[in-house]
């Protein structure tokens, strides 16, 4: 392991095997760090898929139909509707809250009105709290699955069809949960594209 040096006394290069091994570790280290950055980006779609699959962070589940038998617990389900700045709509639930038996399919309505003189689009984001109940909140149909259009001063009533999975009765995390809030926030479409298309949570 001898280092050769130039006239300034600085190291020029390490000869032989040591130099080669050093370069190998150096290149390997850089490649590894780049790989970690790649994995960080991969975490975004993975996280979104994870939330959809498990209901993590209060992500409701999307179901085709309710086939389960009715359960015996009755929970209060509250509704919350918000409009993000930049969208001239009003948006509110018809009922503030309802009592829902697990396993029973329910339909609720949200009232929406476009206050502006021009047709506009809106897209709702949503989640439920407590977050642990996300895995048991099954939506069969919802206006939030797609972008909604409203003409000038048009108003509408939008249904949400959902049921609570009776499996929540077996989850100790849900033992002390007797009230679930479903919350929506209606956003105007982003002013400029491009938006990162990473398949936002469904449900």
């Amino acid at each position: 392991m001898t280092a050769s040096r130039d006239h300034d006394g600085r190291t020029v290069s390490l000869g032989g095997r040591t130099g080669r091994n050093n370069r190998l570790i150096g290149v390997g280290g850089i490649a590894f760090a780049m790989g970690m950055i790649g994995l960080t980006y991969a975490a975004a779609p993975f996280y979104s898929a994870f939330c959809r699959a498990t209901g993590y962070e209060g992500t409701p589940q999307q179901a085709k139909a309710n086939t389960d038998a009715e359960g015996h617990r009755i929970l209060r389900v509250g509704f919350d509707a918000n409009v993000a700045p930049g969208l001239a709509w009003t948006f509110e639930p018809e009922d503030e809250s309802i009592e829902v038996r697990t396993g029973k399919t329910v339909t609720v309505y949200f009232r929406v009105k476009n206050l502006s003189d021009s047709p506009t689009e809106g897209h709702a984001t949503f989640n439920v709290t407590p977050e642990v109940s996300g895995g048991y909140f099954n939506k069969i149909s919802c206006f939030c699955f797609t972008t909604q259009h409203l003409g000038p001063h048009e108003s509408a009533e939008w249904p949400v069809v959902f049921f609570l999975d009776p499996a929540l009765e077996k989850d100790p995390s849900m033992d002390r949960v007797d009230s679930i809030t479903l919350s929506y926030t209606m956003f105007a479409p982003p002013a400029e594209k491009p938006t990162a298309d990473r398949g936002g949570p469904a449900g």
Partner: protein
Amino acid sequence: MASVTDFSHHGVDAHHEHEHHIPTGWRRYLYSTNHKDIGTLYLILAIICGLIGTVLSILIRAELMSPGVQVFPWISAIMTGDGSADAAKNMYNVFFSSHALIMIFFMVMPAMMGGFGNWMVPLMIGAPDMAFPRLNNMSFWLLVASFLLLMCSMFAEGSPGMHGFGGGWVLYPPMSSQVGTPGPAADFVILSMHLAGASSILGSINFIATIFNMRAPGMTMFRMPLFPWSVLVTAFLLLLSLPVLAGALTMLLTDRNFHTTFFEPAGGGDPILFQHLFWFFAHPEVYILIIPGFGMVSQVVATFSKKPIFGYVGMVYAMLAIAFLGFAVWAHHMFTTGMSLNAQRYFVFATMVIAVPTGVKVFSWLATMWGGSLSLRPPMLWAIGFVFVFTVGGVTGVVLANAAIDRYLHDTYYVVAHFHYVMSLGAVFSIFAGFYYWFPKMTGYLYDERLAKWHFWVSFVGINLAFFPQHFLGFQGMPRRVVDYTEAYAFWNMVSSIGAFIGGAGTLIFVYVLYDAFKVKRVAGANPWGPGATTLEWQLPSPPPFHTWEEPPHILGDEHDHAPAIVGHGSAA
């Protein structure tokens, strides 16, 4: 034992004809590829940034000395010309955010890895320099650029009409996104962290190559002293975790400036994802801040107990275990984000498991001291102080690991007290232990030991007085990151502030110790610590010549030993 302290025979080697062409003046440092010079630069940067960070913390404590907002209207008026209450509160947020970032990225990390790592790892493993000397230079100057960007952010617009970024070191969106901080202050912070991250990633690759590949013949991995081991473990932590921060910050930057929506709910993103990515980086980061300290404390405790370190192999595996577990516990910072009970159970359990290898280390230090011939010279005082305060911080960490208790203590002053016990006391004490241990080696001068002991005792009393009462404030429910509080918290805040001022006085003593050491020039000799100092660096003259170990040192003993190589019984010079 080879007469490695005698350099005259090296003259016969043609390579060494150039040894005396040492670059001079600013070129020596700006263009430096010498591990010792770069280490010195890192230490100077760490001291300057440490002093700046300390001033910020003293001003924070001055504000919190009593209820109300008294100090920051002045500071804000001086810095920005706006002394209004809102500007004052904003400036307070900027100060605690900058305090954290400066102390983590520009004080502890440069001191431990850049400073002592660069200086001592090649000396302790018998390597002529780092594996990539030019990369080493780049790492340092990237960090300087990074620090300048952070300083720029304090004077750029953040929230509308306000200066600086006040969202805390965690940089959570939406506080750090367009919503919370539309101005460029947040971009400056993000880019600053990018550069600091790049600097550390390059540095860690350099350490890994050096330690794997450039050890002297006979210096097998398990004969390597614990400090190079700790640097190796830390380098792997950096290489694994910092790219995740870089990636998350790049997402944040593109969210802010290029309309991506990684963390924007409007486009289907989730700010909680940032927290996961951030803590996947930041929990290993807190071990990055302490593991080199473990290494330094191990060297110091062994030297001043005049015994080999107790349980050397266990110490190595404990560091590896802590590093490994450090990647599996990140969500214990996020107990309040609504995880399922099972996820909380896992993170509670995994977090508490870390107490086991940590306990192995603490007991090994105690066992090293047990029955040893202790000499309470300044490095040893700091090392014993480290063991004490680190254990206090570790115990409060086990308390906080419980999700149920964390529900109550989350974001209170209890957390502030906890991480300052491991960082501001633990990591900083280990840095001072290392500094007082290696200062005679690095400079060739001894410092005034009486003053250095004063530095220790004043700091010890001051910082404990500052942070211990914060446990009480946390239990009483005082939230962290607040500029003002109710009368109920007044008493312990007053005590804490007085402690901080005493700690600040300790720092002034440190500055004087430095001044005095360079002024009086007490010659240290190759080994001022006597027979306990058995690692390679003490075989060199103090300060070591510009080039060292170009002829690899001769390591005695069986290569299959699992104990640090003992290279001599350091004759006092």
